[in-house]
């Protein structure tokens, strides 16, 4: 079966004025099938966020190809939507207006937009907050708006760049469970970047471990936990075993950097 998303020998070098050029990615190869929940973990600076931005279309690779559904990725497109670590909500817009952003740019009429936005606001559990401004919301709530906004345009893949890293530990756990619930209902393809092994193992079907910079896909582990997953699974010895396996692979990369 042809992969849904593929990256082949993708490389990128960052040139800067004062410093030596930095190779962010060096011949990265990756494939994702439709409906999968895939996580990428890797040491800091390994280029995972860079790769995500390239899939989003905001950065171009220096060499290699990236394809979705057989066509090359050359720029942003509504089939790929991102949830940002820093939320990225427009502070002067209400929750509803923020969720509508993608639909607005797609040219959808105002009435239909608001209808769809309302559905999603309900989906992420923010009813009653439609007319609030971002500065009135907590971190977790802001990220829910981010998620609603990304889902509004019905993208084919959801790219998530350490979306819960800016939240406190309790909110983070809560959001992970909520994300899984929403995912079960929509079954989108998700590419999730994170630092946390536990988060990656809990959420994904597959975990890809990246090497230290310059980044490459080092190894892929399949997560053999049944779905739907619940919080108690995180306390089982099987889960710990999975975490150890991932850690073993990741460990080498961290040590090699130090």
């Amino acid at each position, binding site marked *: 079966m042809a992969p849904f998303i593929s990256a082949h020998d993708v490389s990128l070098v960052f040139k800067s004025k004062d410093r030596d050029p930095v190779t962010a990615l060096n011949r990265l190869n990756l494939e994702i099938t439709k409906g999968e929940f895939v996580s990428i973990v890797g040491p800091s600076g390994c280029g995972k966020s860079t790769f995500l*931005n390239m899939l*989003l*279309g*905001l950065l171009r690779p220096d060499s290699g190809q990236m394809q979705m559904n057989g066509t090359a990725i050359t720029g*942003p*497109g*509504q089939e*790929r*939507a*991102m949830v*940002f670590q*820093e939320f*990225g909500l*427009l*502070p*002067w*817009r209400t929750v509803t207006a923020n969720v509508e*952003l*993608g639909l607005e*740019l*797609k040219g959808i009429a105002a009435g239909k937009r608001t209808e769809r936005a309302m559905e999603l606001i309900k989906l992420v559990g923010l009813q009653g907050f439609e007319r609030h*401004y*971002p*500065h009135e919301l907590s971190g977790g709530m802001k990220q829910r708006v981010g998620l609603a906004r990304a889902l509004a*345009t019905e993208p084919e893949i959801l790219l998530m760049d350490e979306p819960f890293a800016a939240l406190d530990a309790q909110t983070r756990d809560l959001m992970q469970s909520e994300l899984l619930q929403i995912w079960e209902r929509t079954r989108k393809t998700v590419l999730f970047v994170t630092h946390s092994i536990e988060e990656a193992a809990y959420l994904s079907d597959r975990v890809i471990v990246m090497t230290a910079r310059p980044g490459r896909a080092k190894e892929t582990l399949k997560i053999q936990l049944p779905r739907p997953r619940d919080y108690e699974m995180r306390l089982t010895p099987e889960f710990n075993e999975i975490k150890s396996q991932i850690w073993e692979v990741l460990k080498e990369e961290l040590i090699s950097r130090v």
Partner: protein
Amino acid sequence: MKRLANFYTEREPSILGGGFILLLILLWELMPRLLALPQGFSLFFTTPWQVIEACYQLFVENKIQEHFYVSSIEFLAGLGLAIVVGLPAGLITGRSRNIDAMVDPFVTIFNATPRLIFLPLFILWFGIGIWSKIVIVFIGAVFPLLINTYEGVKNVDRVLVNVVRSFGANEWQVMKIVVLPYSVPYIIVGLRLAIGRAILGVVVGEFFGASKGLGFMIATAATNYKVDVVFVGVAIFMGLSLVLTMAVKKFESKLSRWRPEEAKTF
């Protein structure tokens, strides 16, 4: 007694500040009665009440309306042009590094020099009709607007720009949806400064090359030792300045509903 004390402490700033101003005005009014002014000095002296009387006189004799009208047109036209040119220019220079580099030396040079030095040149080119004043108002007001809009654009949060671009927005949409709303507080500051410079332009422009206008009225009154009329003109400009500044502040707070209180630093 306690209630009076409470009333005072609550409103101390306004009582002290307002009281001081009232005291000064009162002293000013009473000065000729309290002190014996030297003969020559009284030629240059006037009191608040005389100023009010002079203002009433001018109004009733229909002498002031035309001056006011002319000055207003010069002010509004010059400021309007400055907004229409300065805002887009600030947006474009903020977004394009190349254009910024090319325009920067001119902006720096013209912003540092007092634009009034061009007044003789403009009078030479445009005569003493309203156009020379409109131009001097324009070049005075355009720079704060351009510079502050530029600063707003440069400071836009990169994440927000990436967010909107990731949804497939083109450059024009990015400007409209992110850059412009984000820059509004900066533009407001620029507008306040521009208004001050615009008034300056009207005043000075009308001193030196005009046949009508409040500035002209002030200049001719001064040479005729009509000090009360001078102060009528000064008071009108002062009042306009204050009213416009307050209006801009009101406008700003209306547009800033989405900002958390601490962020309102302007």
